[in-house]
């Protein structure tokens, strides 16, 4: 057998190489869930409630069942023996309503699945949805969380008439003392509106059942194939080892595909029932109705400070709009916000109360940033409100209060330990790059000419690289297997499940350097529970920091084995492996990796006490989170005639620790900023006061288009994380976290001379125009 491994020639980590994923994606040869065709495949379509709250008085499925091509119709009674849609979070007073896969005798939100039809053709399935007749008796509903908390509000779940889903309290320091010592206390109500994560690929599942060996194969558009397998096995009552979950190409997720959704389990259930493969894919309209929404916070902030700007303490009340049911991690969203409340500032007194509220809406859960954008938006708005109150420059105010570089690792009052950073340095870099003092002069001159120009600053810290296992019900470790094939090529199997992040590229870069082989000899596989060792998945900016570290450690373990085999082949006890060859340090004789690999698999002899095969698996549990940080500065201009906001400049200076591929880091920052800017200016999920979803299409939900996003200037500082051997922190969510306060701060700054202190998102032209017209007092 010929050995083909080629020696590496240059260092790959840090290089902006183009992605190894892309050839399939630019030629139309990638396979997403909807691209999967199996022999005899049938199509499922879901009948959804048009009411936010109603009793189901009856369901007539006869007409649908008799429609040619329809194979079956299932309603709540057919699935009541199956498990519930899971919530993985524990809190002392958490109330978890039983969340059936299909509504039983009542519906709780517009879009609630009531029945599912199965047909031989997707058009027939859609026809049959209209033939299912459901008799509803609508009841009063409540859509706004603060209204849901009022006495006498309709109860979402009859057993809990106060609509409280959970509460959570956390405090650090002495908040009463801080507020007693304060010279000034600023207060604000700050809303982080509901958003639609809006991955371009709608959710979908293809399931097939083998009745002979009673195994189920599920292809699903998911970020967490291994966790989905465990959860789905539980819901279906199927032995887990009989279930194979595959995340094929996944067209974006942004947190929204970190769930077990009812339709995923229903598709699997139907495949088992009818003995034929079944495909189900959401329409965009149903995606808006029935995929989780993000954010949904109403927060009350009080910030206490001295006259000189020294911040003393923060009191926050968070009202989290839960929706009618918890999804997998819903209650963790606001509790994660709480951990980030102090931002980058060193005050030690924090008092946080959270109440999760049931409403007659779709559930909220993870969406890019997941709790952290809300907290960052809050503190970064409050710093600006305080600066305005004290007449201080917001840059100076921030620098006065930052945790200094000498204090790392820094224990926050919320019980987390920031790993490393230099916050003043990154803000100074941003301020210098953007030309801050000159911009302030331009602003003054502009105002004299009636121009409304604003400069917005946001600094952020981010808890990411999730994370130590106590922080996650799934476990927070990640896994990697590295195998040198008999032919010398390298196969990596990672437990993360990338869906756009480019981890096949970055992991190849890491492995090429660590193993000393050419990148073209490396393949990275993921997402199939039958072929990849157990893993956790992709979310919380964890791929590289946690999954990449497991990879590095697996390779390091493997290198010891390579040297053991090298020593045998070189008949020496003093060998070193580097750059694709094992060298005898005494004679200088070498043996290439390919030959070592072939020997390891085919013998005939093996070193004493050494197993055949060059393969190693590592499960790495991180000792801490990693904490990226940054400073974003936005220059905006408000048109007083129309209320439109134009972003004139957007500068993002981020520190995500060591950079594996700068091209991909820029891509993550751009994409993240576009989503945060979307929240700041355009996007909101709107339910009207009868509980109907108003923003149910891209006609109504303003997803940013190319012309709505500015050119983003990026720069970096690089502070390695001491938490992992790669020194990486993570960058997936940074842009989203920084962008919304940076943009809003710029617009508030543009209108500050009118007395404007705060504006809630999205900053629609109508809202801004009214403020301008009314001299800031809308």
């Amino acid at each position, binding site marked *: 057998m010929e050995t083909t491994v080629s020696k590496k020639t240059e260092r790959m980590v840090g290089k902006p190489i183009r992605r190894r994923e*892309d050839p399939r*994606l630019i030629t139309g040869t990638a396979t997403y869930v*909807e691209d999967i065709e199996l022999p005899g495949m049938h199509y499922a379509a879901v009948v959804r409630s048009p009411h936010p709250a109603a009793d189901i008085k009856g369901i007539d499925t006869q007409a649908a069942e008799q429609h040619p091509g329809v194979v079956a119709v299932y309603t709540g009674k057919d699935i009541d023996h199956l498990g519930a849609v899971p919530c993985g979070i524990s809190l002392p007073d958490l109330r978890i309503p039983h969340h059936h896969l299909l509504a039983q005798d009542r519906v709780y939100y517009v879009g609630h699945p009531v029945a599912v039809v199965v047909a031989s053709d997707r058009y027939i399935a859609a026809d049959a949805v209209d033939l299912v007749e459901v008799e509803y008796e609508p009841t009063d509903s409540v859509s706004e969380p603060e209204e849901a908390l009022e006495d006498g509000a309709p109860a979402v779940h009859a057993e809990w008439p106060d609509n409280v889903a959970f509460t959570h309290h956390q405090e650090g320091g002495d908040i009463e003392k801080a507020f007693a010592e304060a010279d000034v206390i600023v207060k604000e109500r700050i809303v982080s509106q509901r958003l639609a994560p809006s991955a371009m*690929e709608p959710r979908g599942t293809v399931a097939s059942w083998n009745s002979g060996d009673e195994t189920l194969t599920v292809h699903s558009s998911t970020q967490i194939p291994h966790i989905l397998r465990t959860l789905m096995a539980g819901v279906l009552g199927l032995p887990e080892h009989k279930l194979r979950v595959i995340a094929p190409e996944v*067209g974006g997720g942004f947190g929204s595909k970190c769930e077990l959704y009812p339709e995923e389990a229903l598709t699997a259930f139907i495949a088992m029932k009818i003995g034929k493969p079944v495909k189900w894919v959401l329409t965009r309209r149903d995606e808006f109705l029935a995929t989780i929404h993000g954010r949904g916070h109403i927060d009350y902030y009080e910030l206490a400070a001295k006259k000189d700007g020294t911040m003393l303490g923060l009191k926050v009340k968070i009202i989290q709009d839960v929706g009618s049911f918890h999804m997998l991690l819903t209650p963790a969203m606001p509790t994660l916000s709480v951990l980030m409340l102090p931002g980058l500032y060193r005050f030690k007194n924090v008092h946080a109360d959270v109440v999760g509220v049931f409403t007659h809406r779709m559930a909220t859960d993870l969406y890019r940033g997941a709790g952290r954008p809300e907290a960052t938006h809050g503190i970064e708005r409050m710093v600006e409100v305080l600066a305005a109150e004290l007449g201080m420059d917001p840059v100076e105010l921030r620098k006065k209060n930052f945790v200094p570089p000498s204090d790392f690792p820094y224990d926050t009052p919320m019980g987390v330990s920031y790993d490393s950073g230099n916050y003043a340095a990154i803000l100074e870099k941003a301020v210098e790059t953007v030309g801050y003092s000159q911009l302030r002069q331009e602003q003054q001159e502009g105002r004299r000419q009636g121009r409304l120009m604003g400069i917005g600053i946001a600094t952020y810290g981010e808890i990411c690289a999730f994370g130590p296992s106590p922080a996650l019900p799934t476990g927070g470790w990640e896994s990697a297997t590295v195998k040198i094939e008999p032919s010398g090529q390298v196969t990596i199997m990672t437990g993360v499940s990338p869906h756009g992040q480019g981890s096949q590229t970055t992991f190849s870069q890491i492995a090429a350097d660590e193993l000393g082989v050419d990148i073209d000899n490396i393949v990275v596989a993921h997402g199939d529970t039958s072929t990849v060792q157990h893993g956790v998945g992709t979310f919380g900016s964890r791929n590289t920091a946690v999954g990449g570290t497991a990879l590095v450690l697996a390779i390091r373990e493997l290198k010891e084995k390579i040297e053991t085999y090298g020593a045998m082949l070189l008949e020496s006890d003093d060998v070193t492996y580097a750059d694709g060859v094992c060298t005898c340090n005494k004679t200088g004789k070498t043996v290439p990796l390919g030959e070592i690999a072939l020997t390891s698999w085919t013998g005939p002899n093996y070193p004493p006490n050494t197993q055949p095969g060059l393969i190693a698996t590592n499960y790495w549990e991180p000792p801490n989170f990693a904490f990226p940080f940054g400073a974003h500065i936005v220059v905006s201009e408000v048109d007083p005639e129309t209320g439109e906001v134009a972003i004139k400049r957007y500068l993002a200076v981020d520190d995500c620790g060591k950079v594996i591929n700068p091209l991909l880091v820029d891509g993550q920052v751009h994409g993240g900023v576009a989503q945060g800017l979307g929240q700041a200016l355009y996007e909101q999920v709107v339910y009207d006061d009868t509980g109907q979803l108003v923003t149910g299409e891209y006609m109504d939900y303003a997803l940013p288009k*190319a012309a709505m*996003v500015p*050119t983003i200037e990026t720069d970096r500082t690089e502070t390695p994380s001491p938490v992992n051997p790669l020194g990486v922190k993570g960058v997936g969510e940074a842009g989203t976290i920084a962008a919304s306060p940076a943009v809003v701060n710029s617009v508030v700054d543009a209108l500050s001379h009118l007395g404007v202190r705060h504006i809630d998102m999205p900053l629609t032209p109508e809202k801004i125009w009214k403020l301008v017209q009314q001299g800031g007092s809308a």
Partner: protein
Amino acid sequence: MKTEINVCINGQERTDEVEPRLLLIHYLREVIGLKGPHIGCETSICGACTVALNGKTVKSCALLAVQADGQDIVTVEGLATDGQLHPVQEAFWNEHGLQCGFCTPGMLMTTRELIERNPDPTDEEIRHGLEGNLCRCTGYQHIVNAVKSAAAKVGG
């Protein structure tokens, strides 16, 4: 009742019997097996289904297959010739103009037409030219770079 249609797809003539209500995107994906064009919204806004019909880009989710009768269709699968990537594909790859890749086939088709019409587009013209194609991953910046790079290559 099915209707016969004759189309030329990526240079190949075809005749098929289709339901009158069959959307062009489903014809391409499920009858012919071209999985490149994607379905992102079914309302002609997201542009993931964009293909070229007689050289002009259309949203194939908003057309019926029967409307394509007698016409010439190019999908993303038809961009590369003789194993050589089209300059637009190459540019998206070089400039990191894609992440999850779901919008990419539509973006590539729109870009091809955009630079045909305007061989030297400004950033602003590119951004307006891409208004019919949504991307949730990239923030568009690397896509704009890719369009510029492709234009320079094709024009140069």
